[in-house]
């Protein structure tokens, strides 16, 4: 019995280790190479921060960083407002109509990025809107909004329906009740949604690629650099992106963990 237990424990451990190794070894290798003195992937010639320094000296990369952040911040802000108001609206609707809208909002999350990207590009071309940073922002708003929506909806469903009425009862107009009671009450959902949207914006490549013109974000830089032959600066850049997104997701998980306690 004891041996059996030990064997099954060992088996479970090995399996878990294999899965994690499969998932993370490529990233660990990339992170390691970003600190390698040699340009060659084949040999380790010593530890260096040079590639990171080079990264921050590159005008092109710094410009892409600015585009990435601008797009992510603006798209997150707008989609948080749209998503939150949309969720509140759908929550207040009668269930039949709301169900249709909820399912419609799910679709963009499951549509392949390439489809979303191409169709948005077509729409901009059709509407004669020149592709730019602004079309990219609009595209990001479009795919960020459902993430906010679906982070806020559960909070509304959990909310005591009498809260809104209590606010009216105590003298709030409907708008004031929204600002003073509903939004604070669902704010954990709003923040989680905003963090998710920001993460999605930061690392998007496909949709950005189709909806922008000369403005490139970091993911697009990595892609075009890779076509010319990868430099270790790209390892460094990818490492930083990985760390940033990892940190954001940890934050999101920690928040939802705390709320469920």
């Amino acid at each position, binding site marked *: 019995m004891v041996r059996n237990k030990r064997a099954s424990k060992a088996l479970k451990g090995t399996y878990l280790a294999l899965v994690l190794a499969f998932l993370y070894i490529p990233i660990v290798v990339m992170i390691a190479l970003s600190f390698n003195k040699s340009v060659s992937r084949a040999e380790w010639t010593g530890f260096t921060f040079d590639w990171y320094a080079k990264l921050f000296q590159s005008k092109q990369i710094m410009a892409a960083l600015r585009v990435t952040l601008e797009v992510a911040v603006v798209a997150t802000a707008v989609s948080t407002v749209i998503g939150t108001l949309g969720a509140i609206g759908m929550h207040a609707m009668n269930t039949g109509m709301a169900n249709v809208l909820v399912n419609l909002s799910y679709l963009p999350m499951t549509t392949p990025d390439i489809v979303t990207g191409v169709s948005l590009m077509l729409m901009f071309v059709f509407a004669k809107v020149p592709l730019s940073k602004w079309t990219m922002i609009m595209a990001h708003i479009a795919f960020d909004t459902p993430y906010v929506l679906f982070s806020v909806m559960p909070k509304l469903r959990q909310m005591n329906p009498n809260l809104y009425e209590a606010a009216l009862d105590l*003298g709030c107009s409907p708008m004031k009740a929204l600002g003073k009671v509903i939004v604070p009450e669902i704010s954990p959902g709003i923040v989680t949604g905003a963090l998710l949207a920001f993460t999605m914006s930061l690392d998007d490549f496909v949709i950005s690629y189709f909806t922008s013109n000369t403005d490139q974000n970091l993911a697009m830089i990595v892609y075009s650099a890779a076509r010319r032959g990868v430099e270790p600066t790209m390892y460094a850049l990818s490492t930083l992106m990985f760390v940033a997104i990892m940190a954001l997701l940890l934050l999101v998980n920690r928040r939802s963990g705390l709320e469920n306690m």
Partner: protein
Amino acid sequence: MIQDMRLIELKGVCKNFGDTQVLHDVDLYIRKCEFITLLGPSGCGKTTLLRIIGGFEMPSSGEVLFEGKDMTGIPPYKRRINTVFQKYALFNHLNVYDNIAFGLNLKTPEQLGVQTKKEKKEEIARRVNRMLKLVKMEGYEKRSTNALSGGQQQRIAIARALVNEPEVLLLDEPLGALDLKLRKEMQLELKAMQQQLGITFIYVTHDQEEALTMSDTIAVMNGGRIQQIGDPKGIYDEPKNAFVADFIGESNIVDGVMLQDDLVKFRDTEFQCVDEGFDTNEPVDVVIRPEDIMIVGEDVGMLSGTVESVIFKGVHYEMMIRDEIGGEGQGMLWKVHSTTMQPVGTRVGMTIVPYNIHIMHKAKTADAEPVSETGDKEA
């Protein structure tokens, strides 16, 4: 002191949700400083009626008057009414103090009788502290509402509503989530607060004991209709129909026939009673409270029967006694309360004095659901 002035008046109020009519033609007036309870089983429309008074629902037809003026279409935030909700509905993002101050913060300094913003802040602090004292929650100002027990949350919800000095306070089953002992305490405290502040309370509950303890007036509701309005004693002693009799306290309800004034026949037996004005041979509901049936020797009672079960209820024993009408084991079960116990299987006699026999017209509408246990199993 209840004043004669009619503060709120409902005239022919109906309410439909889709195809279901939840309120039928409700007429009701509420006087200033009255403690009125809307009492009924769940689904009887009492909460809907309360929500119409609060402005959270609009009547499908009919009028709601406040001091003689029509209130239809006036939103809740413009009514001088505050509500204590069933699940408290405290604002969890605010502490206890800010929850109570919420309504006052929305008012202008002038509305609070002061000039400057600073004075407003002081006035709010004064009123909030007075409320905390009233609900015995001093020292809890900075606490988070999540950290409070159910009873404490209830007190804060009451303080949050009362601090606005409403003309009318609506309470929707406010004590439903509390344990029995706390509920009894809060009943007395609420009643005391209402008398001290002189505010009209409209209270919704399904608990008849709660209604009897606290109210000046009780409106018993069923099936979207008011069945009876009256003071607690009147409703208990003189229920108007079988539903009210059954809902308020425990009752034995029997089918009977009125033979003439002061003489009724039920269970194949004629009984003297004190009711007049019925048609000859009119079918009626006869209501007898369990404590009004006296157990006597087996052959000297008006009815005789056999004890089938005995439960000790604290002050009295509750016995189920089957009478002998219709053959052995076919009789009707009577609920009898008595301080002396008769063992199961004992044959006893039962006697009822005339003024304890309550005769009621049969309910005319299907909605009123005549609740009868006839025991006649002729099917």
